């Protein structure tokens, strides 16, 4: 069809600034697609959920082909808008499944528990004290499930490990995250799970280790960040672009495109820690990684709020 030739018009709507780790992965994937010439891309950031349906509608009215974003906080209202614009494709982060009645809405989520689990194995190997600190923003499923997978990974190496869990009640307060991390270090933690900005900084200052989440920050903290569980939005987005271009976009759950086997998640390269991680852990990571990819092993998805142990 004619659509396949010209770039798709894609718009992103985000409820936080694009610096936020989670959203940044979507943003980067879209920029990459634009770079390739597959799409033209524009976005609205920091959009309050109150305004979200209006912004969706404005983009739809303007004839965008594909609208991406996150509707966790506005599921019902967003689906109403989707229903009104059957010619526009919507690819939305959502807690819910696709709805066959809404053929133009596909959903995704960052199911990177596989990678988190693997990063946990490394953390378990690196901790001396068996005491691990975890600082989160809010206990939402997208955060909880990664924390649980990470803890499960840690226990593979250190069944006796204890965890300190704190939520700071904000996505953007690095000083507060840092203070919280400091308190955990005082309390014996020697590896930190850096869900928020600010945590790795505390680890760096105190000379202990950190595990990254969603994004790779090792270049900023070469001596500190041992491993990171990365989310790659590219498979999700690229598939959607393909479907829209082919005219076959339909209601679907793109969650699987965040799985490791689809290339939606990965453990960041060891980089500066190459060779410094106990071989036993590296071997286990490789084995589990293979098992995950061939489907012989699945990491449990647990969305409950984690607590200290």
């Amino acid at each position: 069809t004619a659509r396949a030739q010209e770039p798709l018009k894609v718009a992103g709507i985000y409820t936080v600034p694009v610096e936020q780790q989670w959203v940044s992965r979507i943003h980067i994937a879209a920029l990459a697609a634009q770079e390739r010439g597959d799409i033209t891309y524009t976005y609205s950031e920091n959009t309050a959920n109150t305004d979200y349906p209006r912004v969706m509608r404005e983009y739809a009215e303007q004839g965008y082909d594909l609208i991406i974003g996150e509707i966790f906080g506005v599921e019902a209202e967003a689906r109403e808008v989707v229903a009104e614009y059957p010619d526009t494709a919507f690819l939305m982060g959502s807690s819910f499944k696709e709805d066959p009645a809404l053929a133009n809405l596909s959903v995704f989520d960052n199911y990177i528990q596989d990678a988190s689990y693997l990063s946990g194995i490394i953390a378990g190997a690196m901790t001396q004290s068996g005491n691990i600190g975890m600082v989160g923003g809010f206990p939402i499923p997208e955060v909880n499930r990664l924390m649980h997978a990470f803890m499960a990974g840690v226990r593979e190496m250190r069944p006796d490990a204890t965890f300190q869990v704190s939520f700071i009640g904000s996505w953007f307060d690095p000083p507060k995250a840092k203070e919280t991390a400091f308190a955990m270090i005082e309390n014996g933690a020697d590896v930190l799970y850096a869900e928020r900005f600010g945590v790795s900084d505390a680890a760096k200052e105190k000379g202990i280790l950190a595990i990254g989440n969603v994004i790779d920050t090792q270049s900023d903290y070469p001596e500190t960040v041992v491993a990171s569980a990365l989310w790659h939005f590219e498979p999700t987005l690229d598939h959607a672009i393909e479907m829209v271009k082919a005219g076959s976009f339909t209601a679907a759950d793109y969650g699987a495109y965040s799985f490791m086997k689809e290339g939606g998640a990965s453990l960041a390269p060891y980089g500066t820690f190459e060779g410094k991680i106990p071989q036993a852990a590296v071997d286990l990571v490789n084995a589990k990684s293979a098992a995950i990819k061939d489907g012989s092993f699945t990491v449990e998805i647990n969305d409950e709020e984690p607590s200290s142990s």
Partner: protein
Amino acid sequence: MRLEPIANPGLARTTLPPALALLATFGVAAVLALVAGGNPALVFGEIVKGAVGSKFALLETLNRATPLIFTGLAVSVAFRAKLWNIGAEAQLYAGAVVTAVLGTGALPWAAPALLPVLALAAICAGALVLLVPALLKTRFGVDEVVTTLLFNFIFLLFVSYLLDGPLKDPMGMGWPKSARLVAEARLPRIVDGLRLHWGFALALICAAAVWVIDTRTTLGFEMRAVGQNAEAARFAGIPVTAVILKTALLSGGLAALAGYSEVAGLKGALTLDLSPGFGYTGIVVAMLAMLHPLGVIVAALFVAAIFVGADAMSRNIGVPTYIADIMLATALLLMVLAILLTRFRVRRD
């Protein structure tokens, strides 16, 4: 420099400063657009189009004005009595919480019975939330600016707790939000398919009611008297403490209706991000309206139109969306200045 009241301002005097303020706001927006690489010539048209250019745009503007009318009224009622209620945000959430608790199936009633009961319950909750700072003020002399401000933080954390725990939607896949309201608890839409709901009409009714209270009832008279001069009011036999408490109840109740209207009318569920600062914007709306209840309607519509219009404009000319808030702030500051200049002349001394 000195300000001198103008006895009989003419037409030019009353219209020119506000017009200039608007013009200057657009000028600022145009410059900012230019800086960010957008086309400044399009700014004005795109804003108008985005705010009132279509039925959808217009109704969205009214929709965004709805909670602002409630919080604007709440603030104006309180400020009139010199009760500095900076906590409309908390009271809004109080109303929202109650609506979510009672509207999700707890009361098995039909809409005509359920909706008013929910509204009343919300009013009571908001009233109670403001009653605490009001009592601390009247009993212990604790400054209410501080207590109401801090209550915003506390209450939001409380809501966060509720949404993580007792109120969490079991069907919500873990996301912190409440269960959806039953159909009987929803305020119907005014136009099918568009978001504007009867909460807007309720807001207008409340503004009219506050105006009637202000001008026609003894309570209104007492509230104004206490606000203007509490010492004289007390001397004249007005029960000052009781009036402050009644004012708090009224103000808190109005703010809570914003939460009720957003949950029952717009969202259908309680979330932590229900209000993008409607409580704080209510202060601006109230002051822009010079604390007049009917003026609150106009001010809220103005604020909503600028925001919705500028937000749409930012997308259409491709500049960062933050320009909407800049325009809103600029328009507000220049507009209050302009309103002053319609009544005062600046004299150099």
